[in-house]
């Protein structure tokens, strides 16, 4: 009953597509992590008020407009003004910029969760504010932020499916093409869903495990 020969035929293109999905996810994750942390630090510690305000504007814009709108703006909108990004570059950039906004909120919440006495006593024993942040606050905040960052990673892998809309050859886009060529609609889309399941389910299990471990008293 199960069409083995068809599954074998679809396995190769779908595996290649999964590699693109992973590639885009990893790229966007790195960008989101670096930019998100920088934004959080700027938002909370920058002395110039207008910079803090601009960061807040960035976060609000990216959190209150759908990802698809941002991706279309980056891919079609930038091409219109002469900056032609490849679909993969636009995907990594778009998802990374969106993720940075969410992660900056996660980082800020994790900074807030560290008791202010930590900072005050580090300053009192003579650390500079930046030393206090790097050696005292950040290592503790990092542990608090880790589980939400993990959840974000899973969410990000799922969100890479959106870049199919700007023709990046990841899983959903490839599935769509396979359907157009073979008309095996139900089978192909089921395989695509199973592929995401095979990537995301183990990952979220690992993250939940980490979450339980990091919840143990420090």
């Amino acid at each position, binding site marked *: 009953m199960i069409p083995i020969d068809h599954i074998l035929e679809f396995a190769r293109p779908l595996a290649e597509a999964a590699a693109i999905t992973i590639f885009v996810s990893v790229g966007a994750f790195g960008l989101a992590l670096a930019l998100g942390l920088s934004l959080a630090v700027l938002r909370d510690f920058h002395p110039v008020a207008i910079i803090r305000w601009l960061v807040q504007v960035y976060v609000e814009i990216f959190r209150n*407009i759908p990802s698809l709108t941002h991706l279309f703006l980056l891919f*079609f909108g930038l091409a219109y003004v002469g900056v032609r990004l490849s679909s993969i570059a636009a995907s990594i950039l778009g998802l990374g910029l969106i993720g940075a906004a969410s992660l900056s*909120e996660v980082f800020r919440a994790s900074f807030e969760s560290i008791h202010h006495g930590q900072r005050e006593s580090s300053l009192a024993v003579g650390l500079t504010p930046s030393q206090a942040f790097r050696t005292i606050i950040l290592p503790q905040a990092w542990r608090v932020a880790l589980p939400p960052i993990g959840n974000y990673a899973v969410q990000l892998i799922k969100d890479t499916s959106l870049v199919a809309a700007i023709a990046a050859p990841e899983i959903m886009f490839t599935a769509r093409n396979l359907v157009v060529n073979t008309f095996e609609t139900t089978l192909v889309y089921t395989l695509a869903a199973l592929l995401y399941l095979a990537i995301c389910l183990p990952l979220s299990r690992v993250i939940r495990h980490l979450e339980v471990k990091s919840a143990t008293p420090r």
Partner: protein
Amino acid sequence: MIDFISTLASHAPEWLTRLWPALGQTLLLTSCSFLLALGLAAPLEFGRACRWSPVPQLVTIYIDVVRSIPILAILYLIYFGLPGIGISFSAFVSGVIGLGVVYSTYVAEVLRAGVQSLHKGQKEASLAVGMTPFSTFRWIILPQAVRVVVPPLLLTLISLLKDTSICALITVNELMLTSKLIMSEFFLPLHIFVLVGMIYFAIAWPMSLFVRWLEPQLNRGRRTGSTPIQQVLH
């Protein structure tokens, strides 16, 4: 910049006459799928609290599976995949079902957090003073749970609103698809997507501000164990 604004302004009236009905579709899609999500979340929660041993495990597996698959894949399965086995829905109904099913798992999580936040002594004490289980729920549990549940529910509603844009890919005539059609007619991608982004923002941002304002209002005079980080994650 000036050029951009004048082009946008000259086209905006024409585009908006097409975008308003699309916005209507987006809002209708949001409300229908939110109602479906609420309706599906309650049985999920009861299932998870069920005493017969396989039921809670099955519910957990179901939630894990639904959460591991992107919304787009679920929408494609419903809209393009189900007709293959003889079940077909219109694009709009597929969108409502897909978003409703996915979001029910998030809503279930919110409801659980709401009920768990109450000490069980509340329930025991009300029963002990002679209240019926129903009036205990109605007058003791519900008013307290609402305070915990409403802000995260509104946040869920905001992400749902944003995610209705994914339904453009299964040809629901909502904002995103309409703006993409307008783009291919006028070849002004920057203008139309900035405009449609502003429309989404005009709805979602006031809602986010409202949630931020509401939360301290609801928590007034109440000791909360939740730290800011839990509020971000809920």
